[in-house]
């Protein structure tokens, strides 16, 4: 194999391997959605999606061999996103059930609010 052929093989090999892994994970996610796992279907599907995103960001977007600054920017975006989720859900999960009609009682605070106080 000459230099040019080696270069070609190198360029195709890793992306193709990552593609195969991503497609397999996608199929696993699709297949698992048809299994009767009840409450675990969505967490499992989201976990697989998370692994796919990590693979994509590390190997196809090149974060794995990149400057630390790039990884810092990528992580910063996710950290701020987690703050947004944490702050919002700390509000919603501590609201009274009577303020959220239709919500399962396990996800709200079952207490009567004395509205006369406001």
């Amino acid at each position, binding site marked *: 194999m000459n230099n040019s052929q080696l270069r070609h093989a190198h360029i195709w090999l890793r992306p193709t391997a990552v593609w195969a892994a991503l497609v397999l994970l*996608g199929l696993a996610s699709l297949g698992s959605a048809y299994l009767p796992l009840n409450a675990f279907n969505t967490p499992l599907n989201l976990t697989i999606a998370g692994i796919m995103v990590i693979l994509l960001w590390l*190997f196809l977007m090149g974060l794995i061999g990149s*400057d630390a*600054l790039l990884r810092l920017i990528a992580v910063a*975006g*996710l950290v701020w996103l987690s703050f*947004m989720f944490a702050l919002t859900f700390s509000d919603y999960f501590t609201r009274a059930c009577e303020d959220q009609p*239709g919500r399962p009682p396990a996800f709200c605070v079952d207490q009567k609010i004395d509205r006369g106080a406001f």
Partner: protein
Amino acid sequence: MSDAATALREPWPDLDRQRDGVAVGIWLFIASEVLFFGALFLGYAVYRSLYPEAFRIAGAETEVFYGSVNLLLLLTSSVTMTIAVDAARHGMRRTVIACLALTMLLGIAFLLFKGLEYSADIAKGLLPGAHFPLQPAQTQLFWGLYWVMTGVHAIHLAIGIGIVGVFTLILWRRLQPIESPAIVGVATYWHFVDTVWIILFPLLYLIDRS
């Protein structure tokens, strides 16, 4: 002057540093996009936690076939884009242009399938409004989010197709050298659009399939 020397811009001492500069700029943009789409995902998470039964009923109506085919198309397009970036670094002009063109075609195929899917959704009357066919009323929240999230994603993809198309044309007409670090910015944006679809797929298409 060599192609690589033509691609070099002030104030960068070499192409590698210039490539890093492009990457930092596009990643800052991506971080802001994460928060933009994050707000949509947050809205979805709040409403799904409030009305799980309505989301189960509404989610069962999405077209999983189109969603899955589109996932495959975008995953493949991310790979062709990565190969284009690596090939550009090695000055492999024909491979770069072929892979960019293929990436663009895969993106167009995605939009075509999306159009077929939208047409099937509209035929089923799944546009939130007075005559919405599903009950309870909160199912409209799911479908409202579906249209907004997939619509915003499709707009991003259409912009990506335009950028890739113009960039391919620029390289093909030799207006920029093949080693131009701009391809890093184009590729990172494309991969981000793929990322969004990877997350949308389980949220919109894999609800209540068992």
